[in-house]
Structures are given as C-alpha cells and as structure tokens.
C-alpha cells in the first residue's frame, strides 16, 4: 500500500511537470512526426521535388543519315511530359553555361551530350560518353536523373550491342549483316526493351517474383524511414526519461524529503521500491503512448503483440536500471541535466539510436552498439519490427534483462551506501 502511495505521489509530480511530459511524449512524437511530414504526410499526391536540369546537346549528325541526331532524341526524351513531374529541363546554349548553372545552383544536374553520340550509334568502332555534372550536395535529384539517363542509354546500348554481336557472329561464320537487317535487329531489341520498361514502370519485373522477409503488415515504402527513426527516438528518450525520473530520488535526498521518509515507520526497501517502481511506471506510460501513436498515426509496424510486450519490458527495465545507475553516482542535482544529457547522448549514439535508418554499418560500429544497454534494447525491438519469431527475440530479450539486473544491482548498492551513513 505504501509503495503504491509513493508511486502515485511521484506520478502526480511527474505529470505536473511540463518538462518531463515534453521529454516523455512531445519530443519523441515530434521526432517521428517531422519525418512523417517530410516524406508524404503533408500532401495527398506526389509531392517530390523536381530536379532542375540543364541539357546541352553537342551531338553532330552523321552525313549519310541526314539531320537525325541521337542527342536530339535524348533531349526530347528528357522533355517528355511523362517526366514532367520529376524533371524541369532547360536547354543550355553551351557546356560552360550548363556547368556554370550547376555551380551557381540554379540547376541540380547538367547533362552534356557529346558530339560523337550519333556517330557511335552507327560506327561500331566509336564510343561516346554522356556527362552528368551534378551538385554534390544533392542526393535524390541527381540519382533520379542518372537512373533515367542510364535507362535511356541502356536501351540504346542494348540495341547497338545486339546489332554488333549478331554482326560479329555472322561475320565469323562467313556471313554478313546488311544495314536493313541491322536496323531490324535494333528495332526488335528496342521493342523488347520497351516491353520490359513498361512492365518495370508499372512496378513489376517480368522475370521476378517477390517474397517479403516476413509475414508482416505492409508498410508504405515511402514512409519506410519512420519506423526505424521512431524506434531510435523511442529508445533514446526512454533512457533519457529513465535517468530524469531516477533523478527525483536524488532531488528528494537534497530536498530532505527522502531522509524524512526514512525517519517514518516505513521500511527503507519499501521507500526505494516505490521510487524505483515509479521510474518503471513512468517509462511504461511513455512507451505505450509512443507505440500506440506510432501505430495509429504513422502506421508503424512494431511486431506481434507478444513481441511488443517482451520488447517493451526489456526496454523499460534496462532504461530504468541505467537511470538508477547513473543517478547513484551523481554527486548532486546541480548540472544533473548536463551530465545526464551528455551520458545519454553519447551512449545512445554509440548504441545506434541515431543510425537506425542506416544500413550496411561497419562491423566495428555494430560491435560497439552491443557494448551499450541501448544497443541491446534496440536489437530486441528490431527483431520484433522485422517480424522475427519469438525464438529469435528471446536471446536479445534475456541478455537485455541480464544487463538490467547488473545495472540495478550496482546502482542499488551505491544508492544504499549513500543513504546509509
């Protein structure tokens, strides 16, 4: 009963504190909400930014083929209205001005069509290189342009390659490929490439059947970053709040109310249990709110119910243990926030909470993750969010609990030493 009273008293004080509420709920939700808005939440339709492209066509026609240039074909392809949502294409008078536009950041990419493009189409001995001159600070735009250009060149190169190889093989056999036949081969290959291209643009590959890695709720690929981002922030802020909540123990000690509690006919263990459980319950509330909002508002898949429960328990227990350990060694509440902030930021960063959206991380970094309590909490959740089995989850879960036990033990011993004079 007394434990409950201590918990209730602490909860009332917690929820009266704008600071704690902001850290528990507002900031983590902002951390997920802002990327949600960034990647689609602010509009109902396609809202991607157009890439400004300067194209300069230096391609020269080949005498026997009239005024036709492949370069013009490419320019028309880029200016096709089907690409109007992605590209804003302007003709540049010359290469220097196209490059200057990128340097001046009035364009994201300059496409420089070489003079020998058409010649390379008709003469197997000739090669040509299309130059994409990009703003290095941009990521998606240049990649989109590159993808489009490569699609075009692959199609063209494929046709050329088809004709070259057929011709070469026939020649070896003492036969020849006349121009009509050559053009026919290029046309047929081009038609085939178009068919494949159309299939790809409708989201299917004609030769691939996809299987997801787990039987899970389909997320919106456009918002794929939100889940890992919110996970990282949830873990970060849970550890932060764990320490802030544990700080109330030290605060009460300085205020005199903790010693006053010890002077009442209440067992010290009851008092400390009440304080520790208060930390746990505050974290529970935080995690539940974040999970529910994440699922309902951002569509995040956290895992099956059993996995969510286990992963939550692991996170809450280890974060509270960490908080108690940190506070046990803090001399006073003066500048506590600075120290807590520093320790939590560093261990959380080392634990991987800031890099949950990154992939193919170096092994040394993933090793360092596992030297922090945050790393193990994250690992438990990642198994759940990827639809792993309960069997896969159990090991990180148990390791997390074991580490939490150690943290509680050390923190508890140190706390006791301080309060027993």
């Amino acid at each position, binding site marked *: *009963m007394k434990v409950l009273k201590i918990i209730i008293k602490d909860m009332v004080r917690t929820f009266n504190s704008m600071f704690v509420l902001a850290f528990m709920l507002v900031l983590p939700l902002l951390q997920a909400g802002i990327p949600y808005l960034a990647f689609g939440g602010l509009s109902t339709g396609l809202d991607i930014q157009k890439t400004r492209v300067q194209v300069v066509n230096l391609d020269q026609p080949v005498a026997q083929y009239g005024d036709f240039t492949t370069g013009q074909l490419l320019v028309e392809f880029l200016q096709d209205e089907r690409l109007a949502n992605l590209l804003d294409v302007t003709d540049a008078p010359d290469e220097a001005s196209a490059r200057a536009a990128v340097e001046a950041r009035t364009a994201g990419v300059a496409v420089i069509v070489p003079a020998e493009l058409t010649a390379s189409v008709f003469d197997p001995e000739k090669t040509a290189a299309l130059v994409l001159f990009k703003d290095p600070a941009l990521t998606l735009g240049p990649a989109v342009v590159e993808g489009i250009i490569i699609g075009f060149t692959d199609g063209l190169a494929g046709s050329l390659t088809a004709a070259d190889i057929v011709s070469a093989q026939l020649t070896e056999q003492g036969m020849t490929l006349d121009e009509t036949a050559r053009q026919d081969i290029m046309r047929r290959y081009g038609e085939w490439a178009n068919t494949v291209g159309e299939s790809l643009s409708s989201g299917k590959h004609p030769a691939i059947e996809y299987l997801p890695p787990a039987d899970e709720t389909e997320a919106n690929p456009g918002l794929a970053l939100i889940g890992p981002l919110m996970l990282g922030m949830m873990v970060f802020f849970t550890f932060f709040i764990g320490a802030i909540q544990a700080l109330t123990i030290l605060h009460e000690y300085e205020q005199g109310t903790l010693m006053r509690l*010890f002077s009442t006919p209440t067992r010290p263990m009851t008092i400390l249990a009440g304080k520790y459980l208060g930390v746990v319950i505050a974290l529970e509330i935080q995690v539940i709110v974040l999970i529910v909002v994440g699922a309902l508002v951002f569509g995040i898949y956290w895992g099956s119910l059993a996995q969510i429960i286990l992963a939550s328990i692991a996170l809450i227990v280890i974060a509270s243990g960490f908080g108690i350990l940190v506070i046990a060694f803090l001399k006073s509440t003066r500048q506590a926030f600075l120290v807590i902030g520093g320790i939590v930021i560093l261990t959380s960063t080392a634990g991987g909470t800031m890099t949950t959206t990154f992939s193919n991380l170096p092994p040394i970094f993933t090793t360092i993750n596992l030297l922090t309590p945050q790393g193990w909490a994250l690992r438990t959740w990642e198994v759940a969010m990827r639809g792993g089995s309960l069997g896969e989850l159990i090991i990180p879960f148990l390791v997390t609990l074991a580490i939490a036990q150690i943290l509680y033990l050390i923190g508890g011993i140190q706390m006791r030493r301080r309060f*027993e004079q």
Partner: protein
Amino acid sequence: MNNHIAIQVQDLRKSYGEVQAVQGMSFDVPKGEIFGLLGPNGAGKSTTISMLSGLVKPTTGDVLVMGHSILREPLQAKSALGIVPQDIALYEDLSARENLMFWGTMYNLFGKALSKRVDEVLQIIGLTERQKHKVGTFSGGMKRRVNIGVALLHKPDILIMDEPTVGIDPQSRRHILDSVKELNHAGMTVLYTTHYMEEVEEIAHHIVIVDQGKMVASGTRAELVKLVGGQDRVDLRVVGDAERLAQSYKALGGVATVQVKDDLLSLMVEDSNAVLPHMFEMAGRTSTRITSVEIQEPNLEAVFLHLTGRTLRE
C-alpha cells in the same frame, strides 16, 4: 527501561573518519516534558537528532524510544516519533493537503481516518484556508508550519524539533513556541534543539548544553544558572586600553572572570551593584573611558560562557 522515560540515550558516539561529531552523549528525556538541547552551530545537536531518528547509524551507543531500540526495533521506535527537521522537507509542487495526506500514509494512516486527521492538523497549524495551495507558494513561516504539521499527523508520543525557528519572522516564531507549549500541555513529550538560549529558557523543563559533540551540562534552568554561582554578567564598552583595564579588574574583589574582545569587556561578578563603582574608579585611573554598561542576570548564555569560554553565537 524506566516507564517514565520517553527517550533514553545511551553513550551515543558518531565519528566521520577522524572527526568525532558526537562523543559519548547520554541523557534521559522524561515523558511529558519539554527537553531542550542547547548548543552553538556545529555542536553536534543535529547529528544527535539524526541518530535518535534512525537516519544516521551511531558509531557506538544506542537510543531507546518508548522502550524500543532505534537500532534493533526501528519501525516501532519511529512510530513513536514525530520529526520536524531543521530544513523544510516538503514537496513544493504539491499542495499543503496533498503533502499531509501523503506523509500520513507513511505513518500508517489511511482512508477516512487520515482525511480527518489532516483536517485537524491543518486547523492546528492554521492553514485550513490555504490547504489546496502549493507549498512552493507559501512564505517561509507557512512552510515551517506545514513542516511541523507533518510530524503531528500520527499523534506521536514524542515530537523532535530540530531548530524549528531558524530564519523565520518573530510572529511565526512566537506561534511555534506557543504551539510547542500547547502540545506539551496536551501530554506530548518534546525534544527541542536550538542555539537560541531564550527559547529553551522559556519553554524547556530540562536542558542539556552541548558543545563540540559533548554534553557540558545538564539540568533545569535554575540548576544550570547555579553553575555560574548566581553571578551577574557585566558588559562594558570602553575607549582606551581595554587590555590594561581588564588586567586591573582581575585583581578586583568580587570579579570572577574577565574576557576582552576588542572594545568589549565581559565580566562575571558576584554582585554588580557592589563592584560597579570600583570599576568606574579604576577606569578613571587608567585613563580609559567607559561608554556603555550592560548588566545581565545569570542566564544560559552566561552558563555557556562559563563552561566553554565562548558565547553561544560565536
């Protein structure tokens, strides 16, 4: 243990490394009395109180509270105690009522009984009108009243008050002293620590004087004052050679002790009326001018000065 004794302090000692904060304190607090613990800052009063309350483990010694050892039966001992700490120990972001309700549960009061008792205590401390206001918004005096109220919730047999009037206004101080007397009249034993001599002189039935962790004297006010032999204290402010004058006073009959500090001479004399004229005469002879004379009848300040050579407020 004697049934008439509320607290029995048995050779209490506390050391912090080389520092001996309390050295062999032993006294009995009779039931129904106001027991004063008087000493200057750093005398060891608060450390003694902390050991009595079970907050600090004694290096050696024990305390029996209503027959229960604070070391071996802490819960039973603490149930009999109501502690009013020197510093305000309340939750400033909770209201007065919320504070009392919470602390009441820590003293094993629950439900309607707790609510009723909280109403009573609010009445006693005069804060019924402000019960729903946060303690953080209270004045210092009001906070002290809530601080005392918490200790009264469970109707303890013994109330321990550790310097309850430090830093508060005279009106609030008056209120506290009157409350202590009222509580005592109602049967409560009070252990009251302070460095204000006039407070224990007013309220305490029995006084222990402590200095540098040791008991230097114990008894009623009358008994303690007799230690200085009923001597008067005479304070003279002089202009001139105070040291020379002090030397000459030492040879004067009826003068027990002379202390010099800058331009102030403090003397303990048998009869101030008889000695004073001679003092003036001697001053004249040494070309020293006396600018003010203050005569105090024997009090605890004098006792402390006599026993330790220092004043309570040094």
